[in-house]
């Protein structure tokens, strides 16, 4: 365990406990930084941190505006590691804090471990082709940590060291409005069975067929990147891959998925992978447990009939 402070910063209270449990296993002192008032900080008092500092973000403000205030607090330590929740805001805040601490940022980190007196971060590179382990060569390190990187720790004593973060927000970009996202999200991370739709699907209305199969299997429907981003047939939260959602169901049934490295990186923790694709040379057949080379428009209706 390192004799130093780890700062844990999260705009998501659910992620806070996991990050604090991880931080506590790495270093002697953990300071959590949360966004909200004193009540927010008090409701997080048992997150596992030794101290909690809260940033009272106003309705017009944003967590990112606290970058310089947070960096100033971190700089009071001669050496520190800053871990943030791997959200869009988290990555924005991380980048700004990094510049103020004169350090790069590692994002979407899947594991952090202490090795030889330093913290080593692991993350995927080249679209999932490789995993890279790196450590910071400077006194400060900043990383955004993916969900699941740490085991939730044992229940820890509640801290009473709660105070407002020193320093004021600055450099805010004016927000004209904010609205809740309309698209319905599915929780693919928790799904036990997934039907995975690829570019082999000819038309958007054919999603009905995929949904029917998913219904019979008790599965959720997910897809590869182009189906969500180019065709916009499914919400972005449905695409699996290194740059999308990473899933680990019991079974995933891919329909017309070619099997690019980027996509496989998102589904290869599945216990069983089944592939249906008409192209015999599709790389998905090298990554599947069971595959049919054939027309999904013939196979899927017949399969639905057999399983109903």
């Amino acid at each position, binding site marked *: 365990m390192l004799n130093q402070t780890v700062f844990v910063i999260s705009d998501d209270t659910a992620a806070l406990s996991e990050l604090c449990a991880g931080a506590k296993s790495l270093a002697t002192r953990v300071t959590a930084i949360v966004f909200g008032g004193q009540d927010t900080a008090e409701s997080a008092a048992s997150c596992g941190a030794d101290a909690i500092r809260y940033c009272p973000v106003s309705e017009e403000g944003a967590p990112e505006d606290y970058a310089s205030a947070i960096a100033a607090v971190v700089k009071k330590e001669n050496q520190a590691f800053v871990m943030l929740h791997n959200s869009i805001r988290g990555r924005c805040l991380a980048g700004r804090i990094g510049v103020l601490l004169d350090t*790069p*940022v590692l994002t979407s980190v899947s594991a952090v471990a202490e090795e030889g007196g330093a913290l080593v971060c692991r993350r995927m590179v080249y679209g999932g082709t*490789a995993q890279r382990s790196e450590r*910071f060569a400077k006194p400060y390190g900043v990383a955004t940590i993916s969900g699941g990187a740490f085991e939730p720790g044992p229940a820890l004593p509640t801290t009473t060291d709660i105070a407002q973060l020193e320093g004021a927000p600055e450099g805010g970009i004016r*927000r004209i409005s904010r609205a809740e996202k309309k698209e319905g999200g599915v929780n693919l991370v928790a799904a036990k069975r997934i039907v995975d739709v690829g570019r082999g699907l000819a038309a958007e209305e054919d999603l009905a067929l995929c949904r029917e199969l998913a219904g019979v299997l008790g599965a959720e429907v997910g897809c590869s990147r182009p189906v969500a981003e180019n065709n916009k047939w499914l919400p972005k939260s449905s695409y699996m891959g*290194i740059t999308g959602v990473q899933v680990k169901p019991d079974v995933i049934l891919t329909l017309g998925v070619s099997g690019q490295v*980027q996509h496989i990186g998102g589904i290869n923790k599945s216990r069983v992978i089944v*592939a249906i694709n008409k192209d015999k040379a599709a790389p998905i057949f090298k990554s*599947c447990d069971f595959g049919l080379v054939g027309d999904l428009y013939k196979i899927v209706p017949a*399969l639905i009939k057999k399983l109903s």
Partner: protein
Amino acid sequence: MKIIVCCKIVPNEEEIRVLPDRSLDLSATPWKISQYDLNALESGRQLAAETKGSVTALSVGGPSALDSTKIRKDVLSRGADDLKLVIDDSHSFSDSLETAKALAGALKNCGAFDVVLCGMGSSDLYLQETGIQTGALLGLPSINNVTAIRPAGEGLLEVERTLEEEVETLEVTLPAVLSVSSEINVPSVPAMREIMRAGKKPVAVLDDLGALDGASLEMLEQLAPEQQERRQEVIEGDGDEAVEALAQFLKKECL
């Protein structure tokens, strides 16, 4: 509006050779424009058309990536009017701050600009920090995951930013650095006319970077993930027998 689009030239990850010891061989891997920078180029093209502006593409990297005429023409066939390059063999650009410092330095040599557009992340390292850190280094407003850009009068843009649970509409004072999400548009395929014109567009090589601090990260290991054993029972056919085999497999394995 004067727009600068940052493009990274990266090894095509689909063609990296994984050696038996799980290390990577990139010696024969061809270069390509980073996937997500195609969205930034497309956004630049659209914004320039709306504002009767211009697009300069900017890339920083080593000679093996940037000396290629084919790559330069590829960038220039996607809406950029000209291309500026910083060719530097002494930095690896493997950490976000080093890359941001290189870009910030290059941007200072690009003359006045209104907006810098970056992709959401590079398809090789995918750190998603270049735009944010470049903006912060230059003291400019910078924001990530932009899903729409609308001109909003002199020196202003109205920007939509999509977060996990909500969509923000922001008023951004120019100059600014925006990282666009890959959902912002579908990059158009260059027309033959654009490909022909690309060869005639100006390419300028800017001064090299001189001494940067150097990388602040030490790489300890880089290996392909261990291959998970898959049974690869593949049947050719979509007739009743094949579907029956699939149904039996599913029943046995998971239902």
